[in-house]
């Protein structure tokens, strides 16, 4: 293996939480319902193809993107569409599918894909429901099939709290991973960039036909925005595609069998969980059976689709998100702390600030909950965001530009180079309890609507 570049940062922080998943993969418990959530596809306007009560096969289109009707989002399993839950203004919240006993799939013709035209290949991926696996930068939305990306990025390791270990998750899927990479290589002039953790490269070292790079440093060193800025920075008008590692495997599996693969290996973790571990399941699975399996220690918990910094709230009765490999369960907070504002008090709460001794007292794992630990205030403290933000961007200035919706300034300050998840740690660490991710998401939505 030849590493084309080693990237490293010191800016960031690893949050050491209790409840990391043990390296055991269990078979999925029986799941009564699956669901698709259109909100998982940021920037997509869903339009249904089917009604309640329709029968679907694994791989049948369920809805498509109004902006690009060729991109289909397909059912992960075969069964019946049980209910379509709608929110205010008839917004589609959830499409719940009840699996049938006999599982059938739609089969596509994939023989000789190596020699297919790129445009035919794109149509194949869109028809078969594989296209949504490909994301685009800027904005972190679904890729546009009309674009020719400058490069494609896949990272095989993450740094967020309690992150899943893809070396373990995909240990038996080297062949499929390689095929997925081969498929992605068809879309770009230069080989796919494959990010590996410098200290644990694992088998991803031996993947062929890629440009390996390694990274090192505290979270968010594993975020693709950082890698892209270092290796192939986004200029005005550039498009870069990114694919999650397990979706590379799903693509690889599809291209050999012609059947849409909806496999998800999830780590169910968090400090409210008694025995955190991994499960093999499918996209959109109901979470309750998994939560019951790992035993929850607390009465009131928050179930998070994703990690504690960037995930979305899923109820105990919620469903696995489309792109998530991680479910985090932590206790709900809602308790008062008398004189909690005294410096060096309550050192059991994880803090990056030097007004707490927590990092000196506890070096291993922290119990966390959802308390805000203060109230929202005006932005006063400066320099704290820069300390945990590895990108060559001024985070506070960008946030302020998004707040006042100054598009020119947002562009100049680098809105194209970030996605909301890059601000997860900023949310966590800032003194004023500013909702940075919310503001950046709003800014990105503005860019999509105004600039496109």
């Amino acid at each position: 293996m030849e590493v084309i570049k080693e990237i490293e940062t010191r800016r960031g922080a690893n949050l050491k939480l209790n409840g990391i998943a043990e390296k055991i993969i269990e078979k999925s418990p029986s799941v009564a319902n699956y669901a698709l959530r259109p909100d998982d596809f940021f920037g997509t306007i869903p339009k249904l193809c089917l009604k309640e009560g329709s029968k679907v096969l694994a791989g049948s289109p369920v809805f498509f993107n109004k902006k690009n009707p060729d991109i289909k989002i397909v059912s992960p399993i075969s069964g019946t569409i049980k209910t379509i839950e709608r929110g205010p203004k008839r917004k589609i919240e959830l499409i719940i599918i009840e699996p049938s006993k006999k599982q059938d799939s739609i089969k596509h013709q994939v023989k000789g894909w190596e020699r297919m035209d790129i445009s035919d290949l794109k149509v194949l991926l869109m028809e078969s429901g594989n296209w949504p696996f490909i994301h685009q930068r800027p904005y972190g939305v679904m890729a546009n099939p009309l674009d020719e990306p400058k490069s494609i990025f896949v990272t095989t390791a993450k740094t967020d709290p309690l992150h899943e270990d893809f070396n373990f998750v995909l240990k038996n899927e080297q062949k499929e991973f390689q095929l997925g990479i081969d498929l992605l290589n068809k879309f770009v002039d230069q080989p796919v960039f494959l990010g590996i953790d410098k200290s644990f490269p694992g088998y991803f070292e031996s993947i062929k036909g890629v440009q390996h790079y390694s990274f090192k440093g505290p979270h968010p060193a594993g975020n693709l925005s950082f890698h892209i800025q270092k290796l192939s920075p986004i200029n005005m008008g550039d498009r870069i595609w990114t694919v999650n590692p397990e979706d590379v495997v799903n693509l690889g599996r599809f291209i050999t069998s012609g059947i849409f693969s909806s496999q998800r290996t999830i780590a169910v973790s968090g400090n409210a969980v008694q025995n955190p571990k991994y499960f093999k399941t499918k996209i959109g699975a109901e979470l309750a059976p998994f939560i019951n399996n790992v035993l929850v220690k607390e009465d009131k918990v928050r179930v998070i689709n994703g990690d504690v910094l960037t995930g979305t709230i899923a109820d105990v009765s919620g469903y696995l998100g489309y792109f998530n490999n991680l479910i985090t369960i932590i206790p709900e907070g809602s308790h008062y702390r008398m004189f909690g504002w005294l410096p060096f008090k309550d050192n059991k709460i994880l803090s990056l600030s030097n007004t707490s001794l927590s990092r000196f007292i506890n070096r291993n794992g922290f119990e966390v909950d959802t308390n805000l630990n203060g109230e929202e205030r005006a932005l006063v403290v400066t320099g704290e965001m820069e300390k945990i933000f590895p990108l060559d961007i001024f985070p506070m200035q960008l946030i302020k530009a998004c707040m006042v919706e100054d598009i020119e300034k947002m562009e100049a300050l680098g809105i194209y180079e970030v996605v909301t998840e890059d601000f997860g740690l900023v949310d966590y660490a800032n003194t004023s309890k500013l909702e940075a991710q919310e503001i950046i998401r709003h800014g990105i939505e503005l860019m999509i609507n105004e600039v496109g």
Partner: protein
Amino acid sequence: MNFLRKSLDKIKKPFEKGQKLEKFAPAFNAFDTLLFVPNHTTKKGSHIRDAVDLKRTMVTVIIALLPALIYGIYNTGYQYYIQIEESFTFLDAFIHGSWKIIPMIIVSYVVGLSIEFGFAVYRGHEVNEGYLVTGLLIPMIMPIDIPLWMVGISTAFAVLVAKEAFGGTGMNILNPALTARAFAFFAYPTYMSGNKVWVSEAGNIDAISGETILGTLAAGGQVNYSMMEMFQGSIPGSIAETSTLWVAVGALILILTGVGSWRIIFGGIIGAAIMGLLFNLWGQNELMSFSWINHLVVGGFAFGIVFMATDPVSAAQTTKGKWIYGILVGIFCIMIRVFNPAYPEGVMLAILLMNVFAPTIDHYVVNANISMRKKRWANASHELKTT
């Protein structure tokens, strides 16, 4: 604790949403949250949050101010007793100082917080903690014999004009505490300068003058204090700025907790030292030949650079900008001292001046990042055309 919480929850009822005192909720919450960090949980964004909040940050600054304040109280009494040439104990001096200073602190807090509460209710936001620091800083940088009503008016001016007029905490351009001092300085010059205001009751006693060191130097006089006395702070001056030693302890607290920017503090020291050295080489008059080390320990320089220049809202906000800002505060402080005998202490004006220029410094620092990005865009499109 549970009992207290329950009774607070009971009192809180009429202030809740849809109840009749809803409008005054910020005022009640200010007291409630002073006792308890509220039980709010995260609703969006990151699900877990750091233990630090603005209250904790501001309380840290207050803790850092305490050594200088306590020494200031003692020094007030000390200066008074050595002037009237009476024998005294530490306690005597401390009591005299408290007698003079505590009313000033009360006036500053009462006036300032009333305005802050009023604006919080009017604008419907929570009371920000920034004033806890400002309200303590204002009396600490006043001359001891200033009448209480002047403290009140200066405070009101600072909070209204320097802070709320710009939109409240986080939006102000000038440091509010320094604005209060500047207001008093220009509105009531006889109470803010000369040789009778720096020592408690000096105006009433026909004794030797209690002039500040910089005042003496500006008048071309000889300084009778040793370097050690200047460092320790047993010299006349504004209430709590005289002791470089105890200010340094506060600086250490600010730097170790990360609350104050070490870049600004060291930048200021470097700037002042360089400027002092240059003037030493020139050596035209008493102030110019006053050793650069002494320049660092006399007057309000140390206090200003540690507690006023580091105010994150009015200082430069970018890392590079903080260095530039700090160094320039130091340079201007010594320059004003030396060139302008009417204002023997330059640190107040130097910081206010740099407060005004801080956004400009940041503008250029941020613009460097922007032009780097634009250059990259231009290069990329150029490459596209050629290939």
